């Protein structure tokens, strides 16, 4: 099976450790993620200003590229890209006035009416491949690893593009169990990681990160899994700042779900780009003997 794939700028640069294992894992499952031959930044953040149509041009152009490929479905792995693309898509479907304005402005492009379906990779795994098939393909079950699924904001908010209802969320849980690991559902799973506040108000950001880490640790997690490069930056790279500030906190390795999936499928550390992670991911994987088992 082939499916159009939008990686996003961060996955092609700082978060290759999310992109590469994802592409490899899907390939192992018989799915070729075909990167759009031409794409631009998704816009990163969906603008909430009602008259700010300029910031919708980027995601809409990407959706037009999907149509140009003769496709009507787009798989996105990055939570933020998913959110921006899905919301722009919804607006183009439902708001005829803004759709007309945007299509008129982008006269060099074909008109777009929201005909593409934007799908997050987690949903794709469940709906198009299925947990059973993935389970049958697992070569290195992640037995004994207690993983806290961290959704953050952009997978679940707003409701109109949520990949599942926040109060009945099961996608991460099902994936973790399919890989043979143990789910540690924790109260801060859907809290905001502080997003870009980590840069403009680092003190507030670090406090927010500390609370999330503390929550996951108190429920017995050994690792956190996410699908958002910004969440990973805050909880992973900036974890050192949280550890310095709070003696009680312990190191909590942070993974992308694509890395764990690739590892569980037996693809080995070489496709996971663990060198781009932070705080002891390799140490944890080695201690669990998941690297040698491959």
């Amino acid at each position, binding site marked *: 099976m082939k499916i159009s794939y939008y990686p996003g700028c961060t996955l*092609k*640069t700082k978060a290759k450790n999310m992109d590469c294992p994802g592409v490899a894992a899907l390939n192992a499952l018989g799915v070729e993620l075909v990167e759009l031959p031409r794409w*631009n930044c998704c816009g990163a953040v969906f603008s909430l200003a009602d008259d700010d149509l300029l910031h919708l*041009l*980027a995601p809409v152009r990407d959706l037009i590229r999907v149509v140009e490929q003769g496709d009507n479905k787009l798989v996105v792995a990055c939570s933020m890209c998913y959110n921006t693309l899905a919301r722009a898509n919804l607006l183009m479907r439902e708001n005829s006035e803004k759709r007309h304005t945007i299509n008129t402005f982008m006269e*060099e492009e074909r008109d777009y009416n929201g005909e593409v379906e934007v799908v997050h990779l987690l949903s794709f795994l469940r709906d198009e491949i299925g947990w059973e098939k993935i389970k049958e393909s697992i070569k290195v079950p992640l037995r004994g690893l207690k993983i806290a699924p961290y959704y953050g904001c952009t997978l679940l908010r707003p409701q109109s593009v949520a990949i599942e209802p926040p109060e009945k969320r099961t996608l991460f849980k099902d994936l973790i169990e399919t890989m043979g690991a143990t789910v540690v559902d924790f109260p801060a799973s859907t809290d905001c990681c502080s997003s870009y506040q980590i840069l403009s108000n680092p003190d507030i950001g670090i406090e927010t990160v500390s609370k999330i880490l503390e929550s996951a640790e108190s429920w017995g997690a050994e690792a956190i899994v996410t699908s958002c490069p910004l969440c990973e930056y805050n909880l992973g790279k900036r974890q050192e700042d949280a550890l310095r500030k709070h003696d009680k906190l312990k190191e909590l390795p942070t993974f992308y779900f694509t890395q764990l999936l690739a590892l569980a499928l037996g693809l080995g550390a070489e496709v996971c780009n663990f060198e781009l992670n932070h705080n002891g991911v390799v140490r944890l994987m080695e201690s669990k003997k998941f690297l040698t088992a491959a």
Partner: protein
Amino acid sequence: MSTTDTTKGESKETTSGKELVSIFVMGKKYEVPKNLTIMKAMEYAGYKYIRGCGCRGGICGACGTVYRKPGDYHIYVGLACQTVVEDGMYLTQLPFFPANRATYNLEAIGSDPEEVYKKYPELFRCVACNACTKVCPMDISVMDYISAIKQGDFEKATELSFDCIQCIFPFENYGG
């Protein structure tokens, strides 16, 4: 560019056997043979290029021209040496493209988008409006190569931007 207007009043001269069209240079109307480039038409009208002429071969970007057409709301950008005049065209010659032109050693900065960001901070404010592509007189896919840089794909960026010489070459080397 700077020009010397050697005409006296509006030109009504006709050339035998040649169809004329009207163009407006800085708001002044001239009758010029159709099928001439903007540059040739202006010279036909009596202007002498003492700067902003460049290579005349559609490469250097010295003769950037902003123009409009009657009944058309678009603002077009083209090279005077390549763009053919149209009836009713309003022309403005660009003396200079006010673009950021960073100087750096390509081998020293490597292929890291962060390094390009330091040289061109405006690059990361891109909202994919595509105005850069539309304003490029060489029809280079500027938006696409900016996207390629942001994606860390410098090979693609190099291929897409290969024809770009930043519309500066003639000014520095030919003095116009």
